[in-house]
């Protein structure tokens, strides 16, 4: 199989990640739940993971790095902490259901959606400025669209929000491990990210970086302050009820070390190189429309395309039969499709990882061409 669905999950993991997960299963028990070796090792692993993440993402205190199940979990905590009934919330036109559904679940949220074209961050900044002038309680934006790969001007947006005193939440699902993500530079109140995409950790892991005190989404045991019936005030325990996913955290630690060692610049360069090559090949195929602009200047290694007269899900399945793994449909982001006017068709999305090669991309383009011609 040739796997080009890193935007959903990086399937191939570094060997250190695989080994750490396997080793953790019978060596790490539960942090804070005992005074024996296995729990001490778990506490040390937790802490090493927090400090490695804090360093990579510019978080001053490791306590402000929270373990979550995924980015959706982190975004729900951030939204639950900041958005109340009747709150005025600004979001980009590229948000995932992980943002729009939690907002929809809160009564009477007054939503402003920035309807701007992809790959034109200057338009987003202009629209955001106008929206902020009207007043807002929260601003939520993804760093990179999971559908089109467009990079959003989050540092500029964060600066504008800070000036207006509006809390800023960043969904770094598609950027963590690929672009520089820095809590201070983004002036973010919360940044949520999954562990299983660009950070090369296992599924079921994620991080929430906190710039302010959040409200817990889950209430329960933390191994601390047990006589109280309210959640501890301090992070990370305030947000981390229940037993930790130690195999996941041990794997995520190795994923973070892998990204740190490799460097996000090198990872991005490789993925953009493959994406540019894919674009070059795809443009030769008749009937394909690829979503990009300016030589991928404002885009990461995410390429969405549609083929005239070929349902995108059917194309995804046909490619799957030929051993090509891509994601087709709406990518849990109907808002992004609405913004780019692909809500009727959906798209097929190609997202390589650091482990893909140019040769694989050439094969992908060749097979895609064959599949389309056969139809």
């Amino acid at each position: 199989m040739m796997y080009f669905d890193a935007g959903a999950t990086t399937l191939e993991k570094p060997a250190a990640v695989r080994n750490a997960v396997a080793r953790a299963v019978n060596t790490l028990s539960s942090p804070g739940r005992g005074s024996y070796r296995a729990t001490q090792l778990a506490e040390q692993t937790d802490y090493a993971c927090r400090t490695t993440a804090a360093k990579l993402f510019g978080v001053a205190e490791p306590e402000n790095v929270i373990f979550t199940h995924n980015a959706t979990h982190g975004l729900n905590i951030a939204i639950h902490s900041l958005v109340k009934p009747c709150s005025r919330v600004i979001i980009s036109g590229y948000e995932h259901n992980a943002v729009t559904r939690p907002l929809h679940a809160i009564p009477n949220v007054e939503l402003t959606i920035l309807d701007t074209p992809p790959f034109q961050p200057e338009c987003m900044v202009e629209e955001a400025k106008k929206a902020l002038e009207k007043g807002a309680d929260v601003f939520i934006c993804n760093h990179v669209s999971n559908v089109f790969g467009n990079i959003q001007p989050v540092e500029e947006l964060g600066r504008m929000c800070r000036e207006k005193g509006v809390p800023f939440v960043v969904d770094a699902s598609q950027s963590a491990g690929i672009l520089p993500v820095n809590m201070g530079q983004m002036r973010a109140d919360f940044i949520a990210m999954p562990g299983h995409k660009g950070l090369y950790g296992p599924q079921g892991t994620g991080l929430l970086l906190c710039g302010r005190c959040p409200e817990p989404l889950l209430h329960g045991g933390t191994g601390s302050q047990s006589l109280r019936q309210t959640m501890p005030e301090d992070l990370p325990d305030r947000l981390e009820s229940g037993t930790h996913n130690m195999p996941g955290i041990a794997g995520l630690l190795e994923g973070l070390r892998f990204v740190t060692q490799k460097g996000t610049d090198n990872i991005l360069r490789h993925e953009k190189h493959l994406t540019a090559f894919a674009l070059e090949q795809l443009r030769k195929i008749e009937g394909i429309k690829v979503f990009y602009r300016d030589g991928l200047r404002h885009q990461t290694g995410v390429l969405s395309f549609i083929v005239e007269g070929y349902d995108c899900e059917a194309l995804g399945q046909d490619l799957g039969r030929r051993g090509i793994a891509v994601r087709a449909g709406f990518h849990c982001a109907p808002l992004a499709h609405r913004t780019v006017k692909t809500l009727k068709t959906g798209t097929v999305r190609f997202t390589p990882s650091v482990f893909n090669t140019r040769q694989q991309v050439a094969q992908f383009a060749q097979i895609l061409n064959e599949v389309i011609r056969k139809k």
Partner: protein
Amino acid sequence: MAQVLFAADSATKAQRLSRVFAERGIGATVQHLPVGLTTEGCAYAVAVSPRRFEAARMLLKTRGITVRRVFFYDENGYREVSL
């Protein structure tokens, strides 16, 4: 064995404190705080030798790290001290 216990509210804070000490050559171990010393239930402590108490105290002061409670333990049992 006599020791000084720096109380910490969470396992993470205890880990952090132990590393701050270790970085300055102050041997420290993370352990649970005895139930009799806690007011809110399960808590943690970072234990150091009484010989290193002054160095540890100065380090916390320099780094601006606040520790809510500190206990001395010896053959007479535990006694709380202030920093």
